[in-house]
């Protein structure tokens, strides 16, 4: 007999009931497995090994993905999984930035594990509903919606009917559908993507939360690595979770008072100092647009340059006038940092939703820099419109922006032309062409279909179809490991080249952002200094992803006396806050050193996972030269004084009478050799071989000498 869902009137494909369970010291000690192909649903216990060595969040994601796949699994095989997990600290309501969901899957861009995080309410609700993680495996033969009722203890798989997959519509519809009434909408969180994820490799996952002030859904994104593409390949249209009754003690922490006090301390700090520091509450991450420009770091014209005369048109104050103020804009309860901005009543000028007035979540710095300056677009409304359509189509703004900048450079170089793009005049600065390219991606038509493959596959296509020079494409195509670069210009900072290149998932700056420390402050002058930074910061930042935490409240606000501490860049007081809240929730007694070791275990696990999949070695850590120095004469000449001076001072090279091409070559040899030396130093510091493989001794030292890891490592020595 087919059961019917009272709320939707649709037949269930599967219904499952579970005991609500107990959330104790940050863990439910149970995870949820759903196979959308076979409709199998089961509960799994969280083992002591998982908690001791993987902590939670992306640690759990990587752990489960390892079990699910083999060396030969591809992203679109049914056995690939999407795992979503918060982490033991996730879901507390007192400390800013404690609502992150960590998502792990095999990426269609990199063919190895990707991890990406999002705000929104899903991760915390999943825990409160009784699960530390959810695994989604299999492939449905028709579009399905998964609904978890965290108060009733029921899970259903339902067939999706008719709805568009574009999130600004679908997310709203599902929020209404599964809420009992207006008051109940705050208890619904939806994960979905959009039509663009169905036709590109750069699909993202949107995580909604209901904004009780605006009376509408807001979106946060797990953007990187094509997770939305995997989601739609599995024919999952949405995962909806409902949980009513959020309170400040649902994690059953051992020490509630410490959580309260530590949270209040940071709330007060933000209240007192944010406006004089980074203005996160006013404008969010976009506060640094003009800062990046002034320090020649704002990617412009596909990372050729670091500044542009028109940057003032997209400076943070321009966006401040476009976003709605005096609205609390945190993406989880208790986030007084409140960086999530929104522009309300924005009238769209193009595309299928032309004329609609919408709320746009943004702009983030990355979007303004990527969709804007990197593509030569200095029109704030165009950036907002591109931002909106990327989000609702389920397209990663960063990959979209970086690959569009690449396409534009190819167009200006004659590798592409109007005939090859099907009429799109993709010069730098052509807003209309960029928007049209995006609309094409949502339908999988025209040149949008090619561009949506991502830079790596596009490079192969351009070489094969049009005979473009592969070396030039490699030099200017800003991807590494298959993932498009995020939006900072790393040319003048060797440490940041490492921060992009010597990473697990590819050139996303969430592991290390060392540009100022290195290039401007000159605090890490030697290879050893840089290597130490490229050990500490990636490990420290990895820890956020194990615990369901956001990075921003760590260093986008600093205590008034931070500058008097011995290591201001680490924000020592905030590091201690994290130690304190972790211990307060879990009852463990870690210190700041054990915190780093917790990360090291998972970091090395991920590295070995990459190696297992055929990647993750030295050869995969190479960078396109555009990330390291001037590729073209135009670039060299634009900063000639700087480059000539460097050649003279660093290499004792007499530049008089030398052609620009000669100087480019000498500069390139030098910079590439510097990167190799850096790589040596970093591998050494991390306890890896010179081929980038973690050593057995390192794994023993970390108590990560698990048989499955040793097997991979020994095979690759």
């Amino acid at each position, binding site marked *: 007999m087919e059961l019917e869902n009272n709320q939707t009137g649709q037949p269930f494909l599967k219904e499952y009931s579970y005991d609500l369970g107990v959330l104790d010291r940050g863990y439910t000690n149970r995870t949820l497995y759903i196979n959308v192909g076979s409709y199998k649903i089961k509960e799994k216990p969280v083992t002591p090994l998982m908690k001791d060595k993987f902590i939670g969040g992306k640690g759990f994601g990587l752990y489960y993905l390892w079990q699910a796949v083999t060396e030969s699994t591809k992203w679109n095989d049914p056995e690939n999984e999407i795992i979503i997990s918060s982490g033991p600290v996730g879901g507390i309501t007192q400390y800013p930035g404690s609502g992150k969901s960590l998502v792990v899957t095999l990426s269609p861009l990199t063919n190895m594990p990707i991890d990406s995080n999002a705000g929104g309410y899903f991760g915390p609700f999943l825990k409160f509903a009784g699960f530390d993680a959810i695994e989604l495996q299999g492939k449905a033969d028709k579009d399905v919606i998964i609904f978890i009722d965290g108060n009733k203890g029921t899970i259903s798989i339902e067939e999706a009917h008719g709805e568009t997959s574009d999130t600004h519509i679908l997310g709203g519809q599902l929020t209404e559908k599964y809420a009992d009434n207006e008051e109940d909408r705050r208890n619904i969180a939806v994960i979905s993507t959009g039509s663009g994820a169905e036709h590109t490799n750069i699909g993202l996952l949107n995580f909604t939360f209901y904004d009780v002030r605006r009376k509408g859904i807001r979106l946060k994104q797990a953007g990187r690595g094509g997770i939305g593409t995997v989601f739609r390949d599995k024919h999952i249209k949405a995962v909806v979770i409902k949980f009513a009754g959020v309170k400040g*003690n649902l994690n059953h922490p051992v020490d509630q008072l410490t959580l309260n006090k530590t949270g209040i301390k940071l709330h007060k*700090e933000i209240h007192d100092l944010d406006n004089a520091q980074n203005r996160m509450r006013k404008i969010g991450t976009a506060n640094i647009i003009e800062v990046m420009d002034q320090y020649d770091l704002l990617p412009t014209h596909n990372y050729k340059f670091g500044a542009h005369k028109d940057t003032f048109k997209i400076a943070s104050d321009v966006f401040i006038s476009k976003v709605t103020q005096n609205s609390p804009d945190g993406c989880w309860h208790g986030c007084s940092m409140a960086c999530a901005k929104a522009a309300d009543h924005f009238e769209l000028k193009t595309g299928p939703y032309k004329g609609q007035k919408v709320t746009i979540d943004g702009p983030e710095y990355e979007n303004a820099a990527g969709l804007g300056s990197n593509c030569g677009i200095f029109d704030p409304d165009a950036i907002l419109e591109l931002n909106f359509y990327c989000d609702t189509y389920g397209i990663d703004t960063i990959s979209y922006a970086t690959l569009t900048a690449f396409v534009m450079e190819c167009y200006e170089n004659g590798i592409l032309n109007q005939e090859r793009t099907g009429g799109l005049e993709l010069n730098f600065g052509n807003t209309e062409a960029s928007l049209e390219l995006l609309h094409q991606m949502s339908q999988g038509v025209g040149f949008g279909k090619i561009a949506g493959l991502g830079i790596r596959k596009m490079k192969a296509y351009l070489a094969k179809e049009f005979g473009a020079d592969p070396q030039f494409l490699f030099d200017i195509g800003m991807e590494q490991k298959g993932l498009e670069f995020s939006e900072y210009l790393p040319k003048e900072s060797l440490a940041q080249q490492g921060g992009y290149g010597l990473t697990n998932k590819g050139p996303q700056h969430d592991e290390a952002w060392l540009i100022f420390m290195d290039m401007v402050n000159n605090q890490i002058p030697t290879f050893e200094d840089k290597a130490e930074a490229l050990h500490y910061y990636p490990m420290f930042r990895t820890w956020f992803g194990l615990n369901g935490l956001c990075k921003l409240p760590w260093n986008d606000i600093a205590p008034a006396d931070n500058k008097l501490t011995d290591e201001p860049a680490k924000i020592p007081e905030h590091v201690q806050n994290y130690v304190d809240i972790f211990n307060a929730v879990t009852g463990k007694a870690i210190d700041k050193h054990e915190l780093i070791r917790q990360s090291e275990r998972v970091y090395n696990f991920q590295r070995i996972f990459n190696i297992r999949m055929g990647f993750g070695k030295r050869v995969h850590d190479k960078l396109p030269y555009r990330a390291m120095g001037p590729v073209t004469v135009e670039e060299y000449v634009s900063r000639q004084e700087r480059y000539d001076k460097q050649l003279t001072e660093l290499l004792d090279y007499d530049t008089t009478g030398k052609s620009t091409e000669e100087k480019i070559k000498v500069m390139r040899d030098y910079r590439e050799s510097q990167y190799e030396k850096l790589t040596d130093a970093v591998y050494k510091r991390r306890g890896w071989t010179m081929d980038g493989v973690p050593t057995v001794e390192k794994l023993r030292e970390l108590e990560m000498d698990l048989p499955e890891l040793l097997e991979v490592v020994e095979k690759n020595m």
Partner: protein
Amino acid sequence: MKLLAKNDSLCIGCGECEEACSKTYFKEVNQEKSCIRIKDKTINVCTQCGECIDVCSVAAISRDKNGIVRINKKICVGCFMCVGFCPELAMKMHGDLLEPFKCVACGQCSKVCPTHAIYISEEA
């Protein structure tokens, strides 16, 4: 608008108000659970300015028809942003409680104040 007004110069620091407050709301004598606090003969109490209303992301704080700023405990998720953002430092937290608490100008404390340093004001 109704509020608990104060005149610091009259305060003798006897603490009677704190005792009355914590007894009224928490049935115990405990300065840490009083909405009004006396320190060095200075009175710290909510002015009903309402800055916390906009800070609350779940709209649990609102002004009632008498002008009193009130917390709806049912909606409150215990984030304590309002405590950190209170310009008067008059929004309070206690480890036994999941929600913050504040003065609602009930006047119980003013009845026991021996010097009339605190009193209910109803001026517009």
